[in-house]
C-alpha cells in the first residue's frame, strides 16, 4: 500500500508491520499479566476494601461509615477504645462493621454504598457520620483527601480496576480523571456566610494568619462558615447514598459529628451559631426528603470533650469523655430505630 500526500511518503513496510504487531502484542501480554497477578493476589486493593468485602460476608447488622473522628484516641486518654468500639460495647447484640479512614467524606461513603448494596444479606442499619468540616473546599477539594482508587474500584467493580490502577497512575492517566488538583483546590472561593472573603490560597499562604488568634479565627471560618446549599456535591452524594441503601431496605442514620462550638463562638459569636444552624437545616431537609433519620450532635459536647487541642489543629477529634457521650447517643438512637 503506497500513498503520496503532499510531502509525506506513506508506505507500510513489512518491518513496520512487524514492529507494530509486536508492540501491540507486548501491550496485551503485559496488561494480561498485570491483571491476572494483581487479581489473584489482590495486590492493588486497599486494606479498607479488603476488610469490607470480608466483613460483609459475616452479615453485619450495622454498617458504620466514618472519618478520623471515629478512630481518633487522644494521647492523654486512658480508655483507648474508638467510637465504634464503644458503640459495639453498648449494643453487643448487633454485629457492627465499619468503613473508616481519615479524611473520608460523603463522596466516599456514597461510593462504598455501591458495594454494600450489592451484598446478598445487606446490613439493617447504616450509620453515616456527617462531618460539617467536610463540606468546606479545604477538605473535599483537597487532592490528598480524594480517594480516586477506591472510587474507581467501587464504580467499576467487578472489573479489576485495582489491577491497572498503579500503571494508570504511573502514566499520569489518572490525572485526567482527578476532578480537583492543587490549582483548583487553591483557587476555591471562601465564604463567610454568603460573603466572598477570598481564595483558599490566600489563607494557606501564611498558614491562615499571622497571629495565633487570626489563625484560629480564619481556620474556623474556612472550615465551617460556608453557606451550604442542596447543590453541594456532598449533598448530592448524601442523597445518592440514602436512596441506594433505602432501595435495599437499609435504614440510614446520618449523624452530625460534634463541633467544638464553644471554641468557635469564642471567636465568632452568634455569626458562627447562625451559619452552622442554617447549614444543618439543609442536611436535615435532605435526610428527611430521602427517608433517612438524622441525629444532630453538633452542639452536644462542651469544649472539654474534644481531643484536638493535643493535635494543634482545629478538628472534631474527641477525647474519651466525648467518645463515651457520643457512642451512648448513637447506640441509644440505633436501638430506638431498630425496634
Amino acid at each position, binding site marked *: 500500500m503506497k500513498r503520496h500526500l503532499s*510531502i*509525506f*511518503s*506513506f508506505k507500510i*513496510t*513489512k*518491518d*513496520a508491520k*512487524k*514492529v507494530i504487531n*509486536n508492540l501491540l502484542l*507486548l501491550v496485551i*501480554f*503485559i496488561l494480561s*499479566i*498485570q491483571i491476572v497477578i494483581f487479581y489473584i493476589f489482590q495486590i492493588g486493593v486497599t486494606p479498607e476494601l479488603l476488610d469490607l468485602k470480608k466483613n460483609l460476608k459475616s452479615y453485619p447488622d450495622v454498617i458504620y461509615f466514618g472519618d478520623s473522628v471515629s478512630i481518633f484516641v487522644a494521647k492523654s486518654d486512658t480508655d483507648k477504645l474508638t467510637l465504634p468500639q464503644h458503640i459495639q460495647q453498648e449494643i453487643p447484640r448487633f454485629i457492627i462493621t465499619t468503613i473508616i479512614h481519615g479524611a473520608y467524606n460523603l463522596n466516599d461513603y456514597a461510593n462504598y454504598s455501591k458495594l454494600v448494596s450489592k451484598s446478598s444479606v445487606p446490613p439493617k442499619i447504616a450509620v453515616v457520620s456527617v462531618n460539617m468540616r467536610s463540606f468546606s473546599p479545604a477538605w473535599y477539594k483537597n487532592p490528598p483527601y480524594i480517594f480516586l482508587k477506591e472510587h474507581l474500584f467501587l464504580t467499576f467493580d467487578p472489573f479489576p480496576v485495582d489491577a491497572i490502577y*498503579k*500503571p494508570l*497512575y*504511573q*502514566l*499520569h492517566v489518572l490525572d485526567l480523571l482527578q476532578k480537583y488538583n492543587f490549582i483548583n483546590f487553591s483557587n476555591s472561593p471562601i465564604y463567610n456566610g454568603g460573603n466572598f472573603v477570598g481564595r483558599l490560597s490566600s489563607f494557606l499562604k501564611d498558614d491562615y494568619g499571622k497571629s495565633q488568634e487570626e489563625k484560629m479565627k480564619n481556620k474556623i471560618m474556612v472550615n465551617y462558615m460556608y453557606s451550604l446549599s442542596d447543590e453541594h456535591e456532598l449533598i448530592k452524594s448524601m442523597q445518592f447514598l440514602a436512596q441506594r441503601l433505602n432501595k435495599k431496605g437499609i435504614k440510614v442514620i446520618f449523624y452530625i459529628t460534634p463541633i467544638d462550638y464553644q471554641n468557635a463562638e469564642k471567636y465568632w459569636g452568634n455569626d458562627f451559631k447562625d451559619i452552622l444552624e442554617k447549614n444543618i437545616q439543609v442536611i436535615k431537609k435532605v435526610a428527611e426528603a430521602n427517608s433517612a433519620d438524622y441525629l444532630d450532635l453538633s452542639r452536644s459536647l462542651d469544649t472539654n470533650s474534644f481531643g484536638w487541642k493535643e493535635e494543634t489543629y482545629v478538628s472534631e477529634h474527641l477525647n474519651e469523655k466525648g467518645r463515651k457521650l457520643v457512642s451512648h447517643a448513637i447506640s441509644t438512637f440505633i436501638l430506638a430505630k431498630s425496634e
Partner: protein
Amino acid sequence: MLFNSISFLVFFPFTTLIYFLLPHKFRWLFLLLASSYFYIHFVPVYILVLIVLILLDYTMAILIKKYPGKKKLFLIFSLIGNIGLLAFFKYFNSANLYLGELFRGLGYSYQFSSITLLLPLGLSFHTFQSMSYIIEVYKGRQKVQKDIGIYSLYVMFYPQLVSGPIERPQNLMHQFFTKHQFKYYRIVYGLRLMLWGLFKKIVIADNLAAFVNNVYQYPRAYSGEVLILATLFFSIQIYCDFSGYSDIAIGAAKVLGFKLTKNFDNPYFATSIEKFWRRWHISLTSWFRDYVYIPLGGSRNKESRTYINLLIVFLISGAWHGSGATFLIWGFLHGTALVLHRVFVKNKRQILKLFPFGKSIFRRRFSIIITFSYVTFAWIFFRASNLQDALYISGTVFMYPVVLIYNLTQAGFSEIANVTYKSTINFTTTNFLVALFFSLLIWYLHFFGKIKNFVSLTSKKHKLLRWAVYSLLVLSILNFGQRNETPFIYFQF
C-alpha cells in the same frame, strides 16, 4: 523534556513516525525543529545561548577554512567564546562569592551582586561537542560544514543534546546525510535499549535516590553504617541514572537510524582506576584525553610531567562537573589515584613480591573491589551538598572500622544491627526493597554473567525468555517505578 516524562512518551513516537514518513531531504529539518522543541520544553530562553554557541563555532570554522594563516587566532577566539560562556554560567556566582569574601577579608568593599541565572541545561555537554568540531576543523581532520542547518543539528540532535554522549563530528555529522530505513531489528534494538535505560533510571536510581537524598541532606543525623550504605547506594544510583540516560539516548538515536558513541562499559568491574576511566563516561574521558591530556604532552615527556598532566586533566574534569570545592577534590582524588596506579604499574613486580596476592582470579577480584571502593569513596565528594558535609561523611566512613570494633566490644552485634535497622526503617518501603533487589540482581548479572550489553545478551536468548525479561522490565516500571519525573543527575552539568 525529560526522557522519563510523559511528554517524551508522546514526543518520541510522534517524531519518529513523522521522521520516517518524511522524504529524506526534509528529515534533517524536521529533526532540527523537533530538537529545538525538545530543548525549549525546559527553559525556552536558553535556546538563545545555544544559538549564540552555534553561530560562533559555525562562523569560526568557516573563517578557519577561508584564512588558514590566521586559523590559530580563530580557534582561540572560538575557545574563549565557548569556555567563557560556560564559565560565565557555571562559575560566575561562585567566583563572585569567593571574590567578595576575599575583598571583604582584606578590608575592601565589594559591590558586585550575584545574578539569578540558572545554568542552561546541558551547556557543558554541547559546548564540549561544539569545541570538538572547531578543534577537528583546525586540525584538518574534519571538513567545514557549510550548511548551518546540519551544523545546528550536530549540536542540537535531541537524543544527546542535554547529557551526551559527547559526539565527535566525524562520528555524527555524516550520519545526517544518510537515508535511514525503517528496519525491524534496528528499531527493536533501540526500543529495548531505551526500555533498559528507563528501567535503570525509574526503578533503580529513582528509588535509591529517596534514601540517598535523605541521608545526604542531614548526614550528621546518621551513624557510620547508614552513611556507608547511602554512599554505596549513591554509587549504584549514579551509575543507573547516567548509564540509564545514555542507554535511552543511544536507543532513541538507534531507532531513528543513528549510531552514537558507547558511554559506559561495565565500569564498576574495572580492575584499576585507569580502566575505570576507560569505561565510565567514555565520551567525556576520550574528549579530555584528545583535547587536553595529549596537547599537554600526555605521557610522551618525563614521568613527573605525565603525573602533572593527569592531575591537571582530572582537576579540569572536576571543575567541568561543578563549581564547588567538592568537585575539585573529587577530580583531585581521581587524578591522584591515576598517578598512584601509574607508579604501581611501573613497579608492579617489586610490589607484587611484597604482597603475594595468589592466583590471578583472586587478584582480579581484589583489584575490582579496591577500585570500586575507591571510586565509591570519591563519590562522597561528588554527592555531598558542601565541603563540611563531605569531610564529615568521609571521616565517619573512614573511621568506621575502628568505631565498629569499639562498638562490637561494648554493645555487641545485635545492638548495632538494631540501631542500623532503626535508622533505615523509614526507607524500608516496597519501592526501596525493589530497588535494592534489582541493584543486587544487576550486580550479580554483571559479576557472574559478565554482561556488557544487556540488550545484546537477551537478543541471543530464546524468544520466550526475551519476552519474559522485557515484560518484567515494563511491569517493574509500571508498578515499582517512581512517578515523579526526577531529572537525571547529569542534567545539572
